[in-house]
C-alpha cells in the first residue's frame, strides 16, 4: 500500500511533473538555486506572497513577490492542497496568490506541504466550502502545459510552463 504522499508523487510524475522532497521550507531556496543553475536560468524568481514564503530567507536568489509579467521565466507558487488520486495541485486566488504565477513563467515551481495532501477532489471541495468568500479563481494544475493538436503527438509548454517542479515539504 502506498502512502498518500507516495501516491501523490507517483501521479505527479505520471503526469510529467517533477517531484522534489525537502524536510522543511527553509530548504527551498537552496533547491531553487540548484534548479535554476541546472536549467541555465538567472537566480531570480517571482514568488507568491503567501506568508510562509515571505518569511523564509531567499539568500542567493533575487525574489519579488508580485504577479508574473511577460519577462518572468521562473515562478514559485504556493498550493493550498494536493490531490493524491491524480497528482493535482490546487491553488486558490487571493491577495497573496496571483494565478499568473502558474501560467506565465516558462518554469514553474509549486510548493505544497505533505500535511496539505488529500486523497480526492471531494476533500478539496470540503475545505473550499469553508472559505468565505469562495475564491474567484481556483486553479487545479496537473503536470506541465501540453498540447496534442499537431498530429495527436504530445508537446510540452504550449502556453503555460514547459516544466512543473512540485516541491513537497515534509513538516
Amino acid at each position: 500500500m502506498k502512502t498518500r504522499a507516495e501516491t501523490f508523487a507517483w501521479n505527479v510524475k505520471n503526469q510529467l511533473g517533477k517531484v522534489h522532497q525537502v524536510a522543511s521550507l527553509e530548504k527551498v531556496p537552496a533547491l531553487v538555486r540548484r534548479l535554476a543553475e541546472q536549467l541555465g536560468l538567472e537566480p531570480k524568481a517571482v514568488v507568491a506572497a503567501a506568508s510562509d514564503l515571505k518569511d523564509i530567507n531567499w539568500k542567493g536568489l533575487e525574489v519579488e513577490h508580485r504577479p508574473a509579467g511577460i519577462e518572468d521565466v521562473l515562478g514559485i507558487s504556493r498550493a493550498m492542497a494536493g490531490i493524491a488520486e491524480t497528482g493535482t495541485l490546487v491553488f486558490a486566488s487571493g491577495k497573496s496568490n496571483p494565478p499568473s504565477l502558474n501560467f506565465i513563467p516558462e518554469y514553474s515551481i509549486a510548493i505544497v506541504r505533505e500535511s496539505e495532501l488529500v486523497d480526492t477532489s471531494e476533500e478539496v471541495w470540503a475545505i473550499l466550502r469553508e472559505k468565505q468568500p469562495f475564491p474567484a479563481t481556483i486553479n487545479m494544475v496537473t503536470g506541465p502545459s501540453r498540447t496534442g493538436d499537431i498530429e495527436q503527438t504530445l508537446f510540452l509548454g504550449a502556453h503555460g510552463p514547459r516544466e512543473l517542479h512540485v516541491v513537497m515539504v515534509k513538516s
Partner: protein
Amino acid sequence: MSKTPLDFEKGAHEALGSATLQQALGKFQTGYPLLRARAMQSLPDFEKVRTKAARIKDFSLKNLEQLTNQYREKVEANGGTVHICETAEDARKTVVEICRQVEAKKITKSKSMVTEELALNDALEAAGMEVLETDLGEYIVQLAGERPSHIVGPALHKTKEEVAKLFKAHHKTRRKRETGEQLVREAREVLREQYFASEVGITGANFLIAETGTAVIVTNEGNADLCRILPKTHIVVTSMEKVIPTLDDLSVFLRLLARSASGQEMTSYTTLVSGPRGPGESEGPTSFHVVIVDGGRSKLLGTEQQALLRCIKCGACMNVCPVYMSVGGHTYGWVYPGPIGAVLNPVLNGFGTMYHNYQASTFCGACEEVCPVKIPLTKIMRDWRTRAFQERIPGLGARLALWLWAAIAANPFLYNLAAGAGIPILRALAGKKGVLKSLPFANGWMKDRVLDAPEGGRFVRGRKR
C-alpha cells in the same frame, strides 16, 4: 473547403481521395483511442462511474430551470452577470454589446464549440474587433480560414507540414519549422503578447456548478487561463445543458472527461471561476459575464431523446467512429462532427439541412461503448431517420423504396420469394468468375467494393411449420 451539410456525399468522396487528410486521419489508429484505452485502466469501475454521471445529468436536465436560477443567483452575489439567451442571434448581440461597452479592440479567445455554433468570431469582426483564437488547434484553423474538424483537436485534419506552411505564410519570419516542437514554440511566442494586449478574454465552460456559481474550464495548454487572468473583462460563453448541481458532482465528471477525451487521468488545467477578481486581488478580470445559450436545445427537454443533452463534448465517439475516421470532420458540414454531430446537428440546425448527418453511420455501436455518459447514439440516429421519413424529408423515390422494402420484409411469403429470387439473379450477374463488380440500383455503393456471388441456397428454404 467550407462544405455545406447537403454536400455530404460529395465531401465524403473528396475526403476519401485526399492523401493528406487520410494521412492525418490515420493517426487515430495510434493516437487518442489507444491513449483512452490505457487511461481507462486506472478507472476500473468505469461502468459504475459513467452510470452515475448519466444519472447526474438526467437529474440536472430535469431540474434545469431551478439549477440555472441558483447558478445565476450565486454568480450575481459574486459580482458577475449572467445572460440567458434563447437564440444564437441573442447570444451574438449580447457578447458584441459587452465588448462594445468596454471598447474592446482586441479579443483573445480560448476554444469553445458553442462560439463556433454562434459564429461569434464573424459577429465580433463585423463589429470591428480583432479576435484571436489561442488554443493551438483553433489558431491553426483560424489561420487557414477553416472550421474545426474535431471538437477536442480542431486541427487534427492537418499534417505537420501543412501547419509549417501556414505559419510561414502568416508569421512572415524566417525560422526552422521542421518539428512539431518548433511549431508549438512559435505559436507560443506569437500569441504570448496578445493576451497582454487584449481588453476581453472569451472562454467556453465545460460545466456550470449551481452550488457555488462556478464555471469550470478544462484545458491542456493553459491558454484559457491566460484569457481569464490578463484581460480586464472575462466572458464565458456556454450552453444551457452544462449546469450540474454540486462540486461533488464535478468530481465524477472530472474522472471521466480527460480519460475519454485525450487519455489523461486529468487535463493539465481545470479552472474554476466564480466571478470577477475578489477583494484585494491584484489580478483577474474586473468584469465578469456568463452567456448561456439555448440555441434549440430546450426542444429536447422532456423528449425521448433528451439524453443527447448529457454530452460532455469529450470527442471519444468520433475517435472510434469508422465513418468519422474515413471522411473527417468537415464532411459533416456543421459545427459538431462524428456521431454526436450526426444526432445533435439536426436538432440545432434543422432535420432537412442535416439529413445526411444521421444517415452517416454503420451502426457498429463503437460510439456508445465509449461514451462516458451513455448516450444511446445509434438509437437516436434511428429515431431521427424515422422522424425524417414521417416528415417526408427524403425524396419520393427513397420513400417509395423504403415503403416497398417494409411491405416485403413484413410478409414472410413475399420476403422468401424475393430473397429466393435474389440468389440465382446474383449468380447469373456474377458470371463464371463468381465475382460482382456492379449491381443494378447500387452502383454508388459498389464503386469501391467487389462482392462474391452467393453460393448454395437459403437457410430457411423449405422449412415447414
